[in-house]
């Protein structure tokens, strides 16, 4: 099968779902149409993995690129899209606003489409636009419930991210300018062209441009100190949207940073650019640790955990080399699975207890035994405890860091991971086993019909089982895959 056909399926399925949901205004039809699209996208993304291994293919006048790195990010996006589409069926039915459900699914599929576009874009200008489009579509998903808080979150989201990403546009223009001094005034700025021209770039321009794009796309990734939009947007959107934002969207911006690191390596600027990347990653961990420890809102807790894990991934890519890249990529997929599970669990808890405040959630296991057990297993996994996948990937990243020039960051990362482990699980201890100081009346009841409950619990199983499997066993096919990507990214190999 040629890559073009698979790519068409990946892009056409969510597009058809978005249009179909908007045209046929039936909530039942919309949820199943969206689900069908997500299954199709997931199957196609799986199929794309081995195809992409054949090397970078460019399609349609070099506007699209299919390479192993992009295919890997597509897989993580498709996984979250599938899980979130399953979960949305149960979650959104329980919200009881059937009149607007078709609009929700149209936006949801549209959001998935924009996220699937990003990793496929070969022209850097168009990639920037794809990332900008994800913001525009998801803003309305964040504000979907139209409460005062959700509108506030949507506003902050669009303003902060648009302002941040405009820095990336400035950086891209500078790259184009730097390249035009060698290549002549008119050329197509693709990833390949930029990488080829990188050794001839003026180092000052290349450094300035890299810092601008790093800060710009870093805003979208949610790296501290540009993370301010993230907790608001992640906590105020409906739970499936939070999962998509955290598990999928952040990765699509991360791939841009990774590709720019690759370009910057080719400029030979010394260790400064990578040190900046590592430092920002470590800062994200530090900020996340502070806010996780003192958090009172369960969804914001998950949001700051995303800041943490994006920091860990940034450290992995910043350390570079085969180990760093492999660890970061493994971390990406594990985090996508795990964070979806965590947001699904918080969504269930919100249904059961009618609150997001950690202090008002008690004895979760008595009110929702199965979902509660899955949620707490996910909580153990997300703090990086064995035997789950994140333990392996974080361990690999630590090992990668020790070998490089930025070994100080490894020790910072270790200390902060321990702080986060204690802080994060302490909240779960309070929610599961803490004594309720108030009356017993505060116990929640998960009032969902059995069918809806099935849709809420199924994706949690589907997220936890692979997470456990990938913690016990690192497939050798993955190792090979990561080695290919690391070889293509090159540069940081030491």
């Amino acid at each position, binding site marked *: 099968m040629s890559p073009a056909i698979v790519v068409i399926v990946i892009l056409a399925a969510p597009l058809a779902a978005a249009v179909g949901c908007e045209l046929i205004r039936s909530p039942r039809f919309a949820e199943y149409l969206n689900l069908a699209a997500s299954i199709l996208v997931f199957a196609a993304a799986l199929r794309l993995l081995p195809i992409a291994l054949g090397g970078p293919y460019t399609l349609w006048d070099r506007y699209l690129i299919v390479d192993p790195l992009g295919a890997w990010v597509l897989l993580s996006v498709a996984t979250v899209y599938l899980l979130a589409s399953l979960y949305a069926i149960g979650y959104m039915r329980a919200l009881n606003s059937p009149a607007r459900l078709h609009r929700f699914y149209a936006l949801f599929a549209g959001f998935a489409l924009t996220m699937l576009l990003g990793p496929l874009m070969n022209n850097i*200008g168009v990639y920037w*636009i794809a990332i900008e489009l994800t913001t525009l579509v998801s*803003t309305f998903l964040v504000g979907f419930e139209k409460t005062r808080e959700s509108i506030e979150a949507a506003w902050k989201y*669009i303003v902060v991210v648009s*302002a941040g990403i405009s820095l990336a*546009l*400035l950086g891209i223009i500078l790259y*184009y300018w730097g390249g035009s001094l060698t290549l002549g005034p008119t050329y*197509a700025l693709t990833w390949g062209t930029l990488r080829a021209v990188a050794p001839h770039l003026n180092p000052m321009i290349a450094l300035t441009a890299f810092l601008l794009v790093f800060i710009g796309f870093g805003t979208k990734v949610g790296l501290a100190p540009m993370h301010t939009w993230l907790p608001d947007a992640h906590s105020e959107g409906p739970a499936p949207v939070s999962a998509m934002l955290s598990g999928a969207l952040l990765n699509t911006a991360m791939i841009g940073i990774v590709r720019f690191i690759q370009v910057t390596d080719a400029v030979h600027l010394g260790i400064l650019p990578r040190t900046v990347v590592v430092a920002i990653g470590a800062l994200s961990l530090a900020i996340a640790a502070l806010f996780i420890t003192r958090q009172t809102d369960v969804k*914001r807790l998950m949001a700051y955990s995303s800041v943490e894990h994006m920091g860990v991934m940034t450290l992995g890519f910043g350390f570079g080399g085969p180990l760093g890249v492999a660890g970061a990529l493994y971390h990406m997929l594990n985090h996508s699975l795990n964070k979806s599970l965590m947001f699904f669990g918080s969504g269930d808890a919100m249904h059961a207890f009618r609150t997001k405040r950690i202090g008002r959630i008690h004895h979760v296991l008595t009110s929702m035994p199965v979902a509660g057990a899955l949620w707490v297993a996910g909580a153990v996994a997300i703090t990086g405890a064995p035997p789950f996948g994140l333990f392996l990937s974080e361990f690999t990243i630590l090992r990668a860091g020790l070998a490089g020039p930025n070994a100080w960051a490894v020790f910072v990362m270790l200390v902060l991971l321990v702080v986060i482990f204690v802080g994060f699980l302490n909240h779960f201890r309070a929610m599961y086993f803490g004594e309720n100081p108030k009356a017993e009346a505060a116990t929640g009841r998960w009032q969902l019909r059995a069918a809806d409950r099935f849709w809420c619990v199924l994706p949690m199983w589907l997220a936890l089982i692979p997470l456990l499997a990938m913690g016990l066993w690192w497939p050798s096919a993955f190792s090979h895959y990561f080695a290919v990507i690391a070889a293509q990214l090159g540069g940081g190999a030491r």
Partner: protein
Amino acid sequence: MFAAHLPPLAGSLFSLLSITSLLLAFVMLGSRWLNAYLGAFALQSWLIALLSAAVAYYGDYPELYGIAALTALFRGLVLPYLLLRITRRLNVDRELHERLSPSSSLVVGGLLVVFAFVVSAHLGATLGLTGTIAVLALTTMLSMKLIGFLMLMVRSEVVSQILGLLVIENGIFLGSQILVPGMPLLIELVILFDLLVVVACFGVLVRYLVVHAGTTSTRDLKRLVG
């Protein structure tokens, strides 16, 4: 590079247009009235359209005439019109509680321009472009970027925030016209279209803000903290 070898008249014309655009950003900083912001933004867009046309003429990039026309149409007419509709609906005609008074903003803005100039002059010097229009373009681009950020920080009316973002965009566009006039047409078109969609999205969000949050000022958006 095109900007390094220009006839003197062209150089002066480009300088005049960029500096005037930068001054218009200061008009926004120095005023409290939303209509003044809008007028300054519209005029700035027209100047940038003129600049595109001038670059097309002197640099022999015929496709830039089209960009100039579209810039004048979208940035100069459609966007101000959309924003005017938003302000009319809001019943707000001026900034009530700016965090920094207009006069102080002017001073800070001046400092930002100095900073932008230092950075650009340094970049230009490493390329041997000192004293050319390229340095001026970089300065204008960075200054307008920083002034846009300043507006986002110190102004709280929603319309001022949208305009802050648009000033940033205008700055990038202005700089790119001089630095990289040969940038593929498609990219410029899509960015223009993107801008239109951004403003449309902002329009919808503003309506939500008024209806569901009952405010037109971002000062009241402070529930989500921690």
